[in-house]
Structure formats: C-alpha cells, structure tokens
C-alpha cells in the first residue's frame, strides 16, 4: 500500500496541532486533510475516503469519544487514533474500548508517532488485502459446478484464486467427475492468459501415434492421409493454456517428448524440421496416484516434478455432502431454464436421497441425475421417484471397510480393461503379481 494512497484526517480544534501534524504527514508522503471540529470532520468523511483519523478528545461541540463512536457506526474499517493530553488518559482508554486503534499523548514523541502510524498502516494494509482476496474469490469466473460452502471446496476456490495470478504449472488431482477440467478452466479464465484459448487434450483417449499428431501437428504428407499441414494442440495453445487430462496415461516416449517441449518451449511438427516456438501454461489432471507411478518407474520423475509445481486436490462429492443441496438446486435452475420446464424445487424426500447417496461419479453424476429428473418430473417439484441413479441406489454406510472398497475398485478396473491384467495393474499402480494375489484373495472371476 503506497503512502500517497493512504489518507489521514486530523481532527483537532487547535490550529497549531492540525498544522504541524499535517506538515509532518505530508513530508512523510501521506494524503492529508484537517478538520477543526467533529461537524467539519463529518463533511470531510463524506467528501472522500479516509484510512486513518487522528482524533482529539477534547473539542467543543461533539467530543472525540462521541465522534469516535459515530465513525465506528458509519465505517468500521477506518482506523481511529486518539490524541489526548496526559491528564485525560482514562478517557482515551474508554475510546479504545469503543474500538479506537490506539492513542497518543500530546506532546507526542516523534518516534512513538511514527511507530503508531506504521502499525495503523500495516493493519489497514492487511484489512485491504483480506478484502481484495475475498473479492478475488467472489469475482472468479467460476463454472456452476465449483460451488459450495464446505471447507474443502472453499480451499479449492482459494487455491484457484491464488494460482490463477501466477504462471505456475498446475496438477489437479481427483476422482472422475470431481470437476478437474472445470477447475483448469477457472484457473485459465482468471489468469492473464484468459484472452488466449485453453486447449484441452484427453491423453487417455488417444493411441500414442494419434496423440503425437494431435499435440505436435503435422506437415503435408507427413504420413498417409496427411493431405494438408495441420497445427497441433500445442501450437493452438500459444499464449494460452494447455490442459492435459489423464496425464498419467501417456506412454514413456510421449513423456520424453513432452518433457522436451516443456523445457525448450519449442518442437517440430511431424514430418517437418522447422522449430515452432510456443508460450503456454500447462495444467494437468489425473485420477492416478502419480507418486506411485513414479516409484514403479512408469512415469518419469523429471516430468512429474515439471508438471507438479502447484497441486490442487478436488474433493469427492461424498466428502462434502453439505454442498449437495446447493449444487442440486444450481443444476435444477440451469436445466429447468434450458429445457423450458416449470420444475422449481426439489422436495425434501428427494433432497434427502440426494444427500445420502454415495456419488461414486461425483458432481458429474449429480448433474446427470438432476437432468434426468427434470425430464421425468410431471409437476413443479422433483420428488423421490423422479430420481434414477445410474448405480443401484446405495446410501453411504458406516460399515464400508477398506477391503470392500479395494475389492469393488479392483473389480471395476478389471471390468473397464476387459480383464487385461497388465493394463489393469498399470491403472491400479501395482504389479501383475500383486494383482493376481488380490484377485485370488477377493474371489474375483472373469465373467463368462
């Protein structure tokens, strides 16, 4: 906070005090105003903002004690420092009880005055910073899915607000459906790169060759079917942000190529030899435990550290059930409006079901459930029977053990990889032998 941005209003009926303090603070670089009475000071307070008021206690008309109370009732953020004679220290103590910041006794030791003002300025600066940080969080261009009042989501919002102001590489971790890409878009949308594009790449959706072409682009004739030159996603993200979804799934060769691009900020298109220079911010996301992947030698440690400068963990929805009503109502309004349906609220029984469901697919799943319920609802309210859950309705239970969770998780991964043991072991971040042991332990079997 620059001193010239700090306004000090001196309220004292003695001209010599006003004049000498005004000169003192002007030479110190502050913006200074004076008032000879509480009435004049009220006018000054209405004319422009003041940060600090130096207030004499004994004045004709409204005295300093009363005026201090008046200031506190109008603007609690103004810092009031009482000026008092030695004989009226008791009165100054009363002013402190009424919220004044400090008091100084006339005549004041210059060194004490300097320290008192320095402390007041510091308090004012911290208060301003606090207001600005809150404002920044409220002003964030935030997708509807990242809302809530839980400590977990507030922490995420604070981290997004902080990291958006930097150019740091960000790693967003979290289960499927927790809003990793939305968080990435919020970071981009609130950064200085927001006027350039954010380019999204789902690394898990491409084969190695296709991902290479997608990222680096290609020259005409680079391979069969490359009829024209095509810019890759890295080039399209120039001056903006590139978001790598499921970064944990890229091959060792791609890991090496990506590391080179991050380090040199340049690459060549497939089939070309001209270096292309790029300037982008990288945000990656993964549901995998990359630390374990690094330990198992499946993910390059140097790339991991390059990508993981700042980490944001997206909380699963089941860990913040207090946010479910807010999110559900948010989706209700969004879809009811876009589908021009007159559904206005969620009945208490339906809301209770939503709050107690275990949301394995997180916010994305909640959004889908609400969307379907609006279609199915015949009235103005969503009731219990309008809700259809993709998994069998299963309220959270206290008795879920780690073993049950592990068994279910391994079963899901085996199902997803069609019982390809190597692939499933890779996704789970364990070796094949361990996976076989666990399949045997839990009695899992391939469906016939």
């Amino acid at each position, binding site marked *: 906070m620059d001193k010239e941005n700090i306004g000090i209003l001196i309220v004292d009926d003695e001209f*010599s005090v006003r004049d000498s303090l005004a000169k003192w603070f*002007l*030479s*110190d670089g502050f913006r200074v105003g004076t008032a000879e009475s509480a009435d004049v000071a009220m006018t000054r307070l209405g004319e422009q903002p003041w940060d600090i008021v130096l207030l004499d206690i004994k004045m004709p008309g409204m005295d300093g004690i009363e005026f201090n109370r008046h200031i506190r009732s109008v603007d609690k953020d103004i810092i009031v420092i009482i000026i008092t004679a030695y004989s009226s220290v008791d009165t100054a103590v009363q002013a402190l009880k009424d919220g004044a910041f400090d008091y100084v006794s006339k*005549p004041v*030791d210059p060194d004490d005055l300097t320290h008192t003002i320095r402390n007041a300025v510091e308090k004012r600066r911290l208060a301003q910073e606090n207001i600005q940080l809150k404002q920044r969080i409220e002003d964030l261009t935030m997708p509807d899915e990242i809302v809530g009042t839980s400590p977990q989501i507030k922490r995420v919002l604070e981290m997004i607000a902080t990291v958006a102001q930097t150019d740091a590489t960000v790693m967003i971790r979290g289960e499927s459906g927790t809003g990793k890409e939305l968080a990435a878009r919020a970071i981009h949308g609130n950064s200085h790169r927001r006027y350039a594009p954010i380019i999204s790449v789902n690394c898990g959706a491409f084969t190695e060759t296709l991902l290479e072409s997608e990222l680096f682009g290609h020259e005409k004739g680079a391979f069969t079917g490359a009829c024209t030159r095509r810019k890759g996603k890295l080039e399209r993200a120039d001056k903006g942000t590139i978001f790598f979804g499921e970064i944990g799934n890229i091959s060792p060769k791609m890991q090496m190529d990506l590391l080179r691009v991050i380090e040199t900020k340049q690459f060549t298109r497939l089939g070309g030899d001209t270096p292309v220079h790029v300037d982008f911010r990288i945000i990656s996301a993964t549901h995998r435990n990359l630390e374990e992947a690094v330990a198992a030698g499946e993910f390059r440690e140097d790339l991991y550290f390059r990508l993981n400068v700042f980490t944001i963990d997206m909380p699963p929805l089941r860990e913040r059930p207090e946010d479910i009503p807010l999110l559900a109502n948010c989706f209700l309004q969004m879809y009811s409006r876009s589908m021009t349906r007159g559904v206005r609220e969620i009945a208490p029984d339906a809301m209770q079901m939503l709050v107690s469901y275990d949301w394995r697919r997180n916010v994305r799943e909640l959004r889908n459930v609400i969307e379907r319920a609006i279609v199915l609802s015949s009235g103005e309210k969503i009731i219990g029977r309008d809700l259809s859950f993709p998994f069998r309705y299963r309220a959270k239970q206290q008795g879920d053990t780690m073993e049950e969770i592990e068994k279910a998780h391994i079963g899901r991964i085996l199902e997803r990889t069609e019982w390809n043991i190597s692939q499933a072991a890779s996704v789970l971040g364990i070796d094949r032998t361990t996976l076989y042991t666990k399949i045997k332990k839990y009695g899992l079997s391939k469906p016939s």
Partner: protein
Amino acid sequence: MNPSKLYVIPIQLSDNSLLDPLLAYLTHDFGVPAEILRRELDLAKAYNVERDQYYSSMILAQLIENPPESAFRILGVTGLDIYIPVLTYLFGEAQFKGIGALVSTFRLRNEFYGRPSDAQLFEERLFKEAVHELGHTFGLPHCHYPGCVMNSSTDIDDVAEKMVSFCRACAQIVRQDRPL
C-alpha cells in the same frame, strides 16, 4: 537578480567551527555557492517557558521573512532545542516546496544521550539532517529507498542508517530545481 545562493543563518550556535565544513559540503552537494547570512531573530517569541524549548515554526517563519533576492534556499542552523506543539522535539523543520529550512544540533550530539563525544559522528549527523531538511524544500517527501538521506529519522540511531546523499530518484528532482 537570480536566486543563486544557499544562505546559512547561524542561530545561537555554541560552536561555529562546524559552519565552514557545512558550507563546503552544501556547495558541493547542491551545486550552488553556500554562504553565511547574519540575521537578528526574535527568539523570545518562539520560546516556551513550560517546555524550555523553541517553537520551530516561529523561527522558520522569521528565517524566510523578506529573503534576499539572491536567496535560492535559506537554512537556519541552531543550537537550540526545537519543537512543534504536538511533538516532543524535532531534529529540523522545512517549508515543503518552499525556500526555508531549519536544523537543530541540540539532539545530534552524542553527549545528549549520555554517550562519549564524537565530533566526526556529530558532523556527519548535521550534514545529513541539513541536506534532509533542504530536500523537503524541493518537494521531496520521506523516501523509502534504503540509505537515501530523505529516509525518515525520528530516533538518533535512525540517522546513522542513511547516507549523506540523495538516492538517484530524489537527486533527479533536486537537479531539476537548480538555478542555471
């Protein structure tokens, strides 16, 4: 006549030997000739019996009354203990963007703080405070650049922390206002 001289007015100084080195330093630092100017001041008007101190602003007002046409700046150097009503003491006072400044040697000597006498340190403090107060007459507020003579000093030990010269930014402002 162009205002081309920096006048130094001694006021109740017990030791006039410090004036010559001060004149030499100011001449060198501000690039204008510094000379002694003798003036009769009504110090009784500025004296406060209860405080046994002299009201700085009243002395300063007399210093700049009817200044010589050749006066580029006027610096009063006094051995008196000076104050303004709201503060217990001052090292000096100046007209912000004006021509007059006043500096007191009363609290610049080590002896005042019960420390051993140190003539060289005293001279250094006097030069710093004189240049500091004159700096205010060029419209310079207190400066935060480490070591700049325009750093605020409300304690004698703060004076030691700063140099005897302006930082580059402050020096530039002073240079702009020098007589051709």
